[in-house]
């Protein structure tokens, strides 16, 4: 019935100087959220990048059946373009099918939901760190992806921003989406599971 959005089996990765994780199994279905916890340099980001398909895991397999949205350390926004132009580009990358009006509507809605509806026309270079983070999150919101991979989404967000994000994650889960978030402080009220890294 509820097909998994993500299935990772015996995932392992090591770098030149450290073995980050190994034998990690993870299945995520619609409506579920996993928090990846762990101190710095325990491989949270690497795990997320493996799940996203940006890097090839040293061992094991990742099977993602749906479209994903990935929020990395870097915003994915060009400083030169306005917030709206950036989101426009991001949206047309993942779904060329959307027509112009629908895309604009989605983008504006996402910006408003994250409390930065007023900043859509400003160049990203002129935005504060917190505002940029919100724009980057708006790109995730606006995308049609069912699976969100969020790497430290709380970085640079104030309390109000964190609350908005939590609410949006809740909404996404209610709509049958899935979330994997790497974070070192608890994120949402309903993290179904946590994966702890760096304990070996």
């Amino acid at each position, binding site marked *: 019935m509820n097909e998994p959005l993500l299935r990772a089996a015996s995932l392992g990765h090591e770098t030149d100087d450290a073995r980050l994780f190994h034998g990690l199994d993870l299945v995520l279905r619609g409506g579920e959220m996993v928090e990846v916890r762990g101190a710095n340099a325990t491989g949270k980001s690497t795990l997320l990048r493996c799940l996203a398909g*940006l*890097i090839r895991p040293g061992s094991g397999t990742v099977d993602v059946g749906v479209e994903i949205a990935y929020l*990395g350390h*870097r915003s*994915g926004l*060009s400083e030169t*373009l306005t917030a709206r132009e950036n989101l426009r*580009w991001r949206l047309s*990358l993942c779904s*060329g099918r959307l027509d112009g009006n629908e895309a604009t509507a989605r983008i504006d809605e996402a910006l408003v939901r994250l409390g930065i509806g007023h900043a859509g026309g400003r160049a990203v270079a002129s935005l504060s760190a917190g505002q940029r983070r919100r724009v980057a999150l708006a790109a995730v919101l606006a995308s049609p992806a069912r699976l969100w991979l969020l790497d430290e989404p709380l970085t640079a967000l104030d309390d109000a921003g964190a609350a908005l994000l939590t609410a949006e994650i809740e909404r996404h889960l209610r709509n049958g989406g899935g979330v994997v978030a790497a974070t070192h402080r608890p994120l949402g009220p309903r993290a179904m599971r946590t994966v702890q890294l760096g304990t070996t």
Partner: protein
Amino acid sequence: MNAFLTQLRRDLAISFRHGAEAMNPIAFFALAAFLLGLGQSTLRLDEAAAGALWVLALFANVLAVEGLFGRDREDGSLEQLLLHAKPLFAALLGKVAAHWMMSGLPIAALSPFVALLVDVPPDGMLVLALTLLLGTPTLALVGAIGAALVAGTGRGGLLVALLVMPLYVPTLLFGAGAAMTALAGGDPSAELLWLAALLAASITLAPFGVDAALRVGQEY
């Protein structure tokens, strides 16, 4: 086609907003040609001037292509492109096309005027412009592979130059060869056809190299 145009439009918008920076390749080309013209009285360039201009265009391209992925990599747009562009092949072509429109294309368009500086005879100018028009996209495509490999290492221009200039040899030979043949009164169509063949081959193959290099770059 969609991915191609999306990417082309985005990158052109960024380039235009950087205004002065986008002028750098052309400015470099004109300036270097001016210096070449200054030295010409002692160098006696004549027919060789076309070859010399080709080398300058090649340098301008190397300098310009180096930064092709740097900014996108730093701000994270590159990861998003790799994750979402469908097909990535088309988006990468769009990216290189935008880059070429801001470097190779103006250089080719400007070359007849620059050729005046180094006393290239008038009938050679158009052929020179044509060879640059056919050859610079190949340089941009091959250069993009080098830029993709070096993006993220923190090393810049010289390394890219070292990696890609050997691969520029065929384009340079046919490009400069066509211009020189035309100047000597011959028929350059064979060389021009070779340039076109190189371009066709690099349009089909280079994006795979860029793709592989960028993915490797995600791992550091």
